[in-house]
């Protein structure tokens, strides 16, 4: 796997923005055909509980914009000093132009600024961090604004139990900057494209354009309804992938960095669900106190925004109290794609979770 290390680059601030509307699985008994036992099993085992979702007017770009505005205001970052903006999303406002250009305009960034999108989901935040580190380490940029967010709730069919209760929405803004003497950051990135169809929205791209047929919701053998424009997930295969590849990737990155598992302060995994996180943690024999897991129960699986949300929502106090916080971040999912990073988090000047206001 491609592994790399960067010197003199730091993560300077993170803000995550979540929509205010909360849904709770307890209010969705009808989705489970009134089967209370099944609902209780899902709550107990998978940890499904609450999630925050957008209305049909709000997009990932809106959430990311508010996160970015807050980050800029609180950190006093001069807009003209942003050399590049990277937007990680699978739910952009338009098929073109890219969200990064749209947000570049809305934020009023300088024309001397690169702007590009990265089409990745659950692994996307770590990929975005890696890209930002690469751009800065090469000398091309001093400051990169990484905007990672998704509104997957708008892609799921409300009558599909296999995905509807899982996904929430979120947007984040992270400032990465050149900082001589900053601790070394380590990254690894991997892909298994043969599993591209295990987590997919089949229609709406060039391969299968939208039509009356793709909009039609069809019942599957398990009694779930979805159209070709909805998100489809082969849950068991994604689960298998996660518990096979994630522990291996984490171990390999720690070996590469020559860091003992115990020396890592936090393991911030993509907040898929408590069951997957618990299984990964168990296989790595991690101390559960070091593994944030509440984010997914409060906000849902937020795709590319889940790791920054877990940092802002669960670790902000802990990392500000410490001189150093070594965190292993690891995202895995659609692609199939997975990526891990070992980074320092106590250099953040801001680490905050905010509610979106329209």
């Amino acid at each position, binding site marked *: 796997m491609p592994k790399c290390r960067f010197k003199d680059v730091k993560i300077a601030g993170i803000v995550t923005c979540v929509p205010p509307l909360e849904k709770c699985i307890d209010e969705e008994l009808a989705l489970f055909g009134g089967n209370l*036992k099944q609902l209780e099993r899902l709550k107990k085992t998978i940890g499904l509980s609450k999630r925050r979702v957008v209305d049909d007017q709000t997009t990932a770009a809106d959430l990311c914009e508010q996160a970015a505005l807050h980050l800029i205001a609180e950190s006093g970052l001069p807009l003209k000093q942003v050399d590049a903006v990277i937007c990680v999303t699978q739910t952009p406002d338009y098929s073109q132009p890219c969200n990064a250009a749209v947000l570049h305009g809305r934020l009023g960034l300088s024309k001397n600024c690169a702007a590009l999108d990265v089409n990745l989901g659950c692994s996307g935040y770590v990929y975005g961090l890696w890209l930002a580190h690469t751009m800065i380490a090469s000398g091309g940029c001093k400051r990169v604004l990484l905007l990672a967010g998704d509104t997957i709730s708008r892609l799921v069919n409300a009558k599909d139990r296999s995905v509807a209760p899982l996904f929430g929405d979120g947007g984040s803004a992270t400032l990465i900057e050149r900082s001589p003497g900053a601790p070394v950051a380590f990254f690894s990135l991997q892909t298994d494209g043969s599993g591209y169809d295990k987590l997919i929205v089949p229609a709406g791209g060039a391969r299968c354009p939208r039509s009356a047929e793709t909009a039609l919701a069809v019942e599957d053998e398990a009694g779930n309804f979805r159209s070709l424009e909805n998100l489809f997930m082969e*849950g068991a295969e994604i*689960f298998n992938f996660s518990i*096979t590849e994630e522990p291996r990737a984490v171990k390999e990155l720690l070996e590469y960095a020559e860091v003992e598992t115990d020396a890592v302060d936090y393991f911030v995994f993509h907040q898929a669900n408590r069951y997957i996180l618990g299984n990964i943690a168990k296989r790595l024999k991690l101390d559960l106190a070091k593994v944030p897991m509440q984010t997914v129960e409060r906000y849902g699986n937020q795709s590319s925004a889940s790791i920054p949300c877990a940092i802002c929502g669960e670790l902000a106090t802990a990392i500000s109290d410490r001189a150093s916080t070594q965190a292993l971040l690891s995202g895995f999912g659609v692609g199939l794609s997975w990526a891990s990073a070992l980074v320092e988090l106590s250099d953040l000047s801001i680490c905050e979770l905010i509610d979106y206001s329209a």
Partner: protein
Amino acid sequence: MLTPYIMDLETFIKNFEEAVEDVEVGTLAGETVFRSLEQWDSLAVLTVIAMVDGEYDVRLKAKELKQVETLAALHALIAAKKAA
């Protein structure tokens, strides 16, 4: 060469019963058609896959769970995969 197999059916059934939420331990047998259980759903598929991975170090696919009928047949499938 096949090594003597340490995984007995009785233990496997107990592991299965513990893996599937709401199933009482001691209620299933080798001839149980597990996919007909009231508790058998997509969640049970996950928890059984996790149990098989954790206890036997075998990666079971959801598709493979659909290709066998009874717990004894599932046990044999896992044993075969383990030996392969």
